[in-house]
């Protein structure tokens, strides 16, 4: 069905990094002294921030929750930045080159409704319960069993994904700049370990906001200059239609009535229910990596506003990701120096070593090399490095919190002092980075492991979404219903994954179609796992004893009296901003219908 495979987050297309590395042609760009200076200054700044914030990260509340002092803007930018990795930027730019504007669905319907739902409906329960993590919420709602399952799965996913991120960054730097893999891994991991280990979540959040600004500052020039050269939107559209003899590349929904009428081979039901509901809601409302940022907000209104603020920027990301891909299609000029060559799939690149071919995934750095001279190129590369590092930092900071609060404290040492837990958190950052480095080298040596690591998210997310939604919105859900729904749901989802892994022909049963492609497996596996977990939760809850409603205050809809927030004018209220998001979301979808 789909032509892409989601990886660790809701919106990373498949990039076969090892093959990208093995068959890399000569570097795509060369840095001068000014570019190097720009990159070095960036590293100096993030480490300085880490050292500066060390003095403000002495208690566990400060180290793990950033003191719950973040404004809505900082929490919102950090929330969206934690997801804006470079693998995603490059991968989706490549997908836009390959499939056109359809790729935008992963930024709009694949994110915005879930972000608004998190802000308006779910955030009050996360925030009022004063939980420090998503497993922590499960602990309060269902008890220690569900917490432990979620915490172990989260910790494993976070630390392994950090390793994949590290390896991905090293590969991209090798392909784009010719840098040594070991050099990239060591420099990035030392920087991340220093600034997160010293300053905790506050440092991770500060750097994510900084990185968000850098990503825009470094990448925004590409679509601006590209559109200028292509003759604006009209000129770009004309060029692509002339080159490809199809206007499907400019329609988000019009051609999704059937699998065969659009470049991506997708169908609207899969996009709406699979991507728009299970995967998107699973990621944006339950993945602790992103939810942790919002939990650090300084009050409930800021916590509700943060995802809404993030959603505006998320809607704008296609401008720096999708447009460069489309512009690459419109401006193909292989005969010109730094011209855009005819790009092919990574399988074709791998099958023709020495042919100096470039894959779709290289379109963003190719566009950077085309327009950005000394200094600006350094800024663009810094934007890519910043994206990778924010992903790694997000993973290790979330790992540290889950490890300390949800595994170490309840299972290993219940009665230690606050400063002891901070020390454990700090050490878990350094140890987590070390494990990530090992994971990075493991992925480099045994490439098949990457598939399993990337599958962890998709295996885990659907049962977790079911447990959280039933826990939050159904008073009757019981301790054993929540635990067994989550636990058996993960086993069911992992079994489906292995069933297809061992015999790819089984994909047709999972995805209900002979024409199904790998993305369909992820979407449908998530859907079946959600339904399975939901059935288990309902059945087990009906035959076990529920908790008294009085105990569910602050945890469940209908049993919670939310605190009264101070009066503010309508333009400062979350409902106003949610309505505005809704209007812009609908307008954008209609504009490129």
């Amino acid at each position: 069905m789909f032509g892409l495979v989601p990886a660790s987050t809701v919106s990373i297309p498949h990039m076969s990094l090892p093959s990208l590395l093995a068959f890399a042609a000569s570097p795509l760009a060369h840095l001068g002294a000014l570019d190097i200076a720009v990159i070095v200054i960036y590293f100096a700044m993030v480490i300085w921030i880490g050292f500066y914030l060390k003095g403000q990260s002495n208690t566990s509340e400060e180290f793990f929750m950033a003191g719950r002092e973040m404004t809505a803007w900082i929490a919102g930018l950090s929330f969206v930045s934690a997801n804006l990795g470079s693998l995603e930027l490059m991968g989706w730019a490549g997908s836009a080159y390959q499939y056109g504007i359809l790729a935008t669905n992963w930024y709009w319907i694949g994110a915005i409704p879930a972000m608004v739902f998190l802000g308006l409906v779910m955030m009050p329960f996360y925030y009022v319960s004063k939980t420090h993590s998503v497993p922590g919420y499960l602990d309060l709602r269902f008890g220690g069993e569900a917490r432990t399952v979620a915490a172990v799965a989260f910790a494993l996913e976070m630390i392994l994904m950090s390793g994949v991120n590290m390896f991905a960054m090293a590969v991209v730097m090798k392909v784009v700049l010719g840098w040594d893999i070991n050099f990239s891994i060591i420099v990035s991991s030392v920087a991340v370990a220093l600034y997160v280990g010293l300053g905790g979540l506050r440092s991770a959040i500060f750097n994510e906001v900084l990185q968000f600004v850098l990503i825009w500052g470094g990448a925004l020039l590409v679509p601006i200059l590209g559109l200028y050269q292509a003759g604006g939107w009209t000129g770009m559209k004309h060029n692509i239609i002339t080159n490809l003899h199809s206007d499907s590349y400019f329609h988000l929904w019009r051609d999704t009535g059937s699998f065969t009428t659009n470049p991506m081979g997708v169908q609207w039901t899969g996009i709406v229910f699979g991507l728009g509901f299970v995967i998107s809601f699973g990621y944006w409302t339950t993945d602790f990596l992103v939810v942790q940022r919002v939990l650090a907000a300084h009050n409930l209104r800021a916590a509700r506003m943060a995802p809404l603020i993030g959603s505006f920027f998320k809607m704008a990301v296609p401008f720096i990701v999708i447009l460069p891909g489309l512009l690459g299609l419109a401006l193909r000029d292989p005969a010109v120096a730094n011209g855009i060559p005819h790009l092919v799939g990574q399988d074709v690149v791998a099958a023709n070593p020495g042919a100096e071919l470039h894959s779709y995934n290289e379109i963003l750095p190719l566009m950077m090399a085309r327009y950005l001279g000394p200094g600006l190129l350094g800024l663009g590369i810094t934007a890519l490095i910043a994206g990778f590092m924010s992903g790694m930092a997000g993973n290790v900071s979330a790992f540290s919190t889950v490890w300390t609060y949800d595994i170490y404290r309840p299972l290993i040492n219940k009665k230690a002092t606050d400063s002891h837990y901070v020390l454990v958190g700090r050490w878990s950052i350094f140890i987590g980075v070390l494990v990530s480095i090992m994971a990075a080298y493991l992925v480099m040596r045994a490439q098949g492991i990457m598939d399993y690591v990337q599958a962890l998210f998709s295996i885990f997310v659907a049962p977790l979404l079911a447990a959280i939604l039933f826990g939050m919105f159904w008073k009757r859900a019981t301790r054993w219903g929540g635990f067994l729904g989550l636990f058996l749901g993960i086993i069911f989802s992992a079994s489906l994954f292995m069933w297809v892994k061992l015999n790819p022909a089984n994909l047709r049963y999972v995805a209900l179609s002979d024409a199904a492609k790998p993305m369909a497996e992820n979407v449908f596996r998530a859907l079946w796992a959600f339904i399975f977990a939901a059935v288990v939760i309902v059945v087990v809850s009906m035959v076990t004893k529920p908790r008294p409603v009085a105990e569910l205050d602050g945890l469940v809809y209908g049993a919670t009296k939310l605190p009264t927030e101070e009066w503010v004018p309508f333009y400062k209220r979350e409902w106003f901003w949610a309505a505005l998001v809704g209007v812009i979301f609908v307008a954008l979808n209609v504009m490129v219908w």
Partner: protein
Amino acid sequence: MHGSKIPIWFFIGLLLTIYGVLIFGYGIYETATGNFPPGVQLTRLHTPLWWGGVLLLLGLVYVIKFRPGKSD
């Protein structure tokens, strides 16, 4: 420095200011000498000059507005 908290916006402003100075400075050099980098397209638009200028201005605004010790 640890006595008063430095807001994140100050760090951002500082970084943008430094980048603005470097890139704007290079833009002046490039325009004055006509020594454009080979292979880069649209050099006639003098991108480092105006983009560096934008970064510099934005950075200065943030540095001044969010400088440590400012009461508001």
